[in-house]
């Protein structure tokens, strides 16, 4: 039973890790955005796992929250990226460092 749970957890960690790595190494804003979604879903998976094995609904609730948030984030984020593209003609993150100290 534990091993089964470990399997889900490790899968969640892997998805999170892929997302984080993608965020770190890719420069395209759309890809980075998708990586963030991956990270969120990895966390979701871990929540659901614990919720299931601990017989608690709290984890499920959080997942619902995160999914709602992610949907909102996508709606705003994609709009921002679109506007950036219109403004700059690119979605490369290296050209977006105007907010430096």
């Amino acid at each position, binding site marked *: 039973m534990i091993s089964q749970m470990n399997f889900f957890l490790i899968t969640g960690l892997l998805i999170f890790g892929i997302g984080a790595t993608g965020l770190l190494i890719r420069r395209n804003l759309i890809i980075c955005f998708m990586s963030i979604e991956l990270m969120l879903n990895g966390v979701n998976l871990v929540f659901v796992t614990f919720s299931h094995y601990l017989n608690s609904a709290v984890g499920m609730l959080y997942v619902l929250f995160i999914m709602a948030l992610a949907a909102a984030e996508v709606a705003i984020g994609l709009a921002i990226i679109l506007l950036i593209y219109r403004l700059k003609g690119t979605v490369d993150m290296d050209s977006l460092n105007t*907010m430096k100290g």
Partner: protein
Amino acid sequence: MFDFIVLIPLFPLFGAFLNGIYGVFRNKWANKPSHTIGVAAIGLAFGLVLLLVYKMLSVPIVLLALVPALGAFLNFIFGYKWSDKLVSIIGVGSVGISFVLSALALWKLIHLDPEARFIEVVFYKWMVSGNLSLDVAFLLDPLSAVMILVVTGVGFLIHAYSMGYMHNDPSYPRFFSYLNLFVFFMLILVMSNNFPLMFVGWEGVGLCSYLLIGFWFEDDYNAYAGNKAFIVNRIGDFGFILAIFLIFVTFGTLNYKDVFETASRALPYNGFTVTAITLLLFLGATGKSAQIPLYVWLPDAMAGPTPVSALIHAATMVTAGVYMVARCNALYTLAPVSLAVVATIGALTAIFAASMGFAQKDIKRILAYSTISQLGYMFLGVGVAAFSAGIFHLVTHAFFKALLFLSAGSVIHAMGGEQDVMKMGGLKGHIKKTFIVSLVGTLAIAGAPGFSGFFSKDEILWQAYSSPYGSKFLWAIGVITAGMTAFYMFRWLFLIFFGEERMDHETKHHIHESPNSMLIPLYVLAFLSIFGGYMGVPESLGVKNYFHHFLEPVTQYAYKVEWPHYSHALEYTLMIVSVAVAFAGFALAYICYIKDPSIPVKFGEKYRTLYKWVYNKYFVDEFYGILFVKGLLKTCFGMRAFDEKAIDGAVNGTGKSLYWSSILTGKLQTGYIYHYVWGIVLGLLILLF
């Protein structure tokens, strides 16, 4: 019933205020319709103030105030073409009203029982903090009644004189504004019923003194003299304020009545605390009243206009120290050491300043040294616990010294601004009226029998001899000084009015007698200088000493010691001795300056060094310059360097270091999101493992 005494200081304040406003806007208002409106507004304000006053008071007193106010108001509206007249009417009128009210206060006070002659009128609550509670309250007792009469009476005469003397001065309103403000602060000083309020007046008169010494500030020397007076006074005020703190710590209150009532119970006779308090108070008095070692500012203070010298630096402000010592008699009598210090400093100042007056050439500086010397007499009087004698001399001195200064002003006026007595002489025939009043003043200060100075000076000398705190030594110094006073004052008189005419032809042609507006105050003061002494005739002459009896309630809390009894014969003898010494001084002056004017020249050549020392005032100014001023300036420049380098450096350094560190840390913020993500992930990893 006594509520109206609040108004006595307020009227000069209104005058100062109105004249100040008028002086500021005078040029703007000239020949414009707005002038009329502005002037009417000021008049209206004055009227409103009087209306407020009317509500506070019973009717008859207000009528006194309202009649001149109505005149002033009408003048305001219709008289803008001769605007200086308005200023005079407000300036002189407000002091005049105060004088009338003071006289009324005295009149009512006399009709009370001697024990009941202590009236406090609370104007408003000033501050409450912890167990400190202070009122702005005025005190009317025999001592302050005498003082307010002198201040407003002599002040009124000098204001009236100034109308003529300052005629055509471009800053005419400013002058009257300052002068009225001075009268206000002086009245606060003598009428307050607690130490801090007295200190307010004390500082206020210092401020007005500074402003008026430097009245003609276009000349650098005048501004410098004003600074000197102000700075030297700071040293004394430092002592005064320390004394106030010490009184509060010791008694827990600052009201005169509470302090003096409890003094003899709360403090041991000749104890350390009471000696410290009184000595610190006396330090304040040495500054304000120009005693050794802080007398150096008074001769320079003669840079101000002559009425200022008469009012502030002779008759009233400089006597504040004497008033203060007399007021604190309950404390001083508990501290015989302090009394001895006061008497000794007074006697030394008297003789020292008199000797400095011998060789001076400036008509006003001679009088300034004479003032210092006479103030020394007053301190000698209060220093031997003869408080009424000291105050008596204060009063008569106010009469004759104001007279002398104003006569000097009249002479300067006649000579077209010349102040060097060596360039005068023989003026007797040209300005006869001024000569007569000067002669009266000189006779009074020299102590000629029958004149006011004789009675007061003799009272002090007798007390210096007979008081338990006095001694033959103090008396001897006093008598010698009396002789010296007669000598230098007659020297002053002879050099100006007798002998050959040493002025140049041009000046001689222009010599003219002063206008009546200047002469009438002189006549009044001359009258007072002759007859002012008869209110305090010594008892040994078989008359009641009204002045002494009137002031007796003031010393009710004083520590009582047994006064030795001497026979009247001894008193007569001493009186004759002092008159004889004074006459000797007169005779010497007569020989030196009328009979054979070559004697002083020969003497000066023979004892060259001595003459040089006396002429240069014993080099005290230079000595102070080297000892204190130079060192102080050096310290100040050192402090400035320290301030610029160390303190400013620390402040600026804080700013600079923050600036550089912000630039360094700012570099961390690259603007690349993945840099931040790296930071987050690394942080997370560090937290995890």
